[in-house]
């Protein structure tokens, strides 16, 4: 009886996982990429995020929005990664990875496209503290309250960071010819 119940529970969890990936996978990996600037790493982080969500499935039910919760896990996971010794080494190596098997051509194309993307380059010139707010607000269209929940800061801090972030992005937009500096 117990084993049947466990099986149902497992199936329920896997079904939830599939739903989360379908609904929020794109947002999670996009947000992770804004932190780590590395497609492979963003993929690994996305994997960690969903697996962690799975392990916290029971506690999650008490939460409000699954997307906000997943984005909070993503932000924390990215910050842990950035603080880890791995990033201390990987960060300075800005050379694209050179060796790909033929089966990874698609992956290579994605990496090259992202690395050449001027908007991503611009976003990644913004200091992390402001970038994370900027991406959530403008790219992911999260509200101030949701951003506060995701980053575990106050809404006042969100407003302050957003204000500074706008200055940075405005300068970048003008510098990069994305705007006529109206």
């Amino acid at each position, binding site marked *: 009886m117990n084993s049947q119940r466990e099986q149902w529970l497992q199936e329920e969890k896997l079904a939830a996982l599939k739903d989360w990936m379908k609904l929020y*996978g794109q947002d999670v990996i996009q947000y992770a990429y804004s932190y780590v600037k590395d497609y492979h790493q963003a993929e690994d982080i996305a994997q960690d995020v*969903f697996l962690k969500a*799975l392990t916290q499935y029971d506690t999650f039910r008490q939460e409000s929005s699954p997307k906000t919760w997943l984005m909070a896990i993503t932000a924390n996971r990215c910050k842990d990664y950035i603080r880890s010794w791995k990033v*201390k080494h990987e960060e300075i190596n800005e050379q694209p990875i050179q060796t790909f098997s033929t089966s990874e051509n698609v992956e290579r194309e994605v990496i090259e496209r992202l690395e050449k993307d001027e908007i991503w380059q611009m976003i990644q010139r913004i200091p992390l503290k402001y970038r994370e707010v900027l991406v959530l607000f403008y790219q992911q269209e999260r509200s101030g309250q949701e951003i506060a929940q995701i980053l575990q800061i106050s809404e006042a801090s969100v407003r302050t960071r957003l204000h500074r972030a706008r200055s940075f992005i405005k300068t970048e937009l003008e510098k990069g010819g994305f705007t006529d500096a109206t």
Partner: protein
Amino acid sequence: MQHEDDDMEQKIRQTLQKAGKVPFREQLQQRILEEAERQLVNVPGLGVKKRRWFRLLPNLTAAAAVFCVIAVGAWLYTQKKPQAGPIAPSGAFSSASQGSLASTSTSSLSKDAYLLYPAPITVQHIRFGQLPGWPAGSVVFTQLTNESNRIIKKSEIFGILSFSGKSVQSRDNFLSFVNGPKEIAPHATVTWSFHPVGAPVNAAGALSEQAQLAFYWSNASDIPSNLHDSPLVWRQSSILLSNISVLNGPTLARGQAITVDAQFTNPTKQTIVTHNLLAVVWFSNMPNQGFTEYGTARFLEHLPSSIPNKLAPGASFDVQFHVIGGENTDYFSMTPHVQLVELPTQVPTPSP
């Protein structure tokens, strides 16, 4: 004016949404599902980590660059061992040596707190620049003035580097121990520079946030009391440490990658909040050496966000710290220590 703001707001939104889509590939989804299934049937999954380590290998050579603290003022620096940590933040755990907290050292007030007494060194003109071998803007340059009437030697002081000012209270902040210059003559000013590993940088590798630096006496009890100022208090957490193990990380071109596993337990009858804790990790040649003492390899580390924010009585959690240490230091022959401290209620003294 409002109209212009709205236009700009619209422009920002439109531009950022035009950023290239980062695909969430079908293969990745499949990989996650397979891993999830494995975990649900209690089979340990290794896929991700293996993949990550494997991919990391080609990058490690260039990596080395980041790890050490570079130079010192032009006139000073002769032989520097990066071990004592101007640089790498890291983590670790501690073992035995509570004895290092003996009240004979003025660096530690009691068994419950460390008192860090500011050294009479004024830190001015912190800026980010470049030295050969490092990305532009990734090296911290500053001017240090000895405000006292005596020579201050490297062995007498240590520094704490922080970024983002007030956010020392938050997990976002970067903190690191740094060494000082070889010596500073009375009332002399020297230029001091170093490369902080792991500090917040932008895409180009340049430091991107405001830095603060303050120096403290290593053994304040040896220093005349007129050279003491109000101390920074680092209160020790009641959380106990156990099951410490030190493991080698992957081989690096420069420096050593070391992983420290530890288990923390709440031995009290009250719930302990963990979000305000920092881990001080140090390796010493003598079992009783405290982290402030010269010759120790010391690191400061935030706890990973994965740990519970509140630790119930009797509850435990495992922590893994990754340390990048100096290549000439034999960490495995040294005594490892880890102490959790509450985030200081006062930030490191900012430069004027």
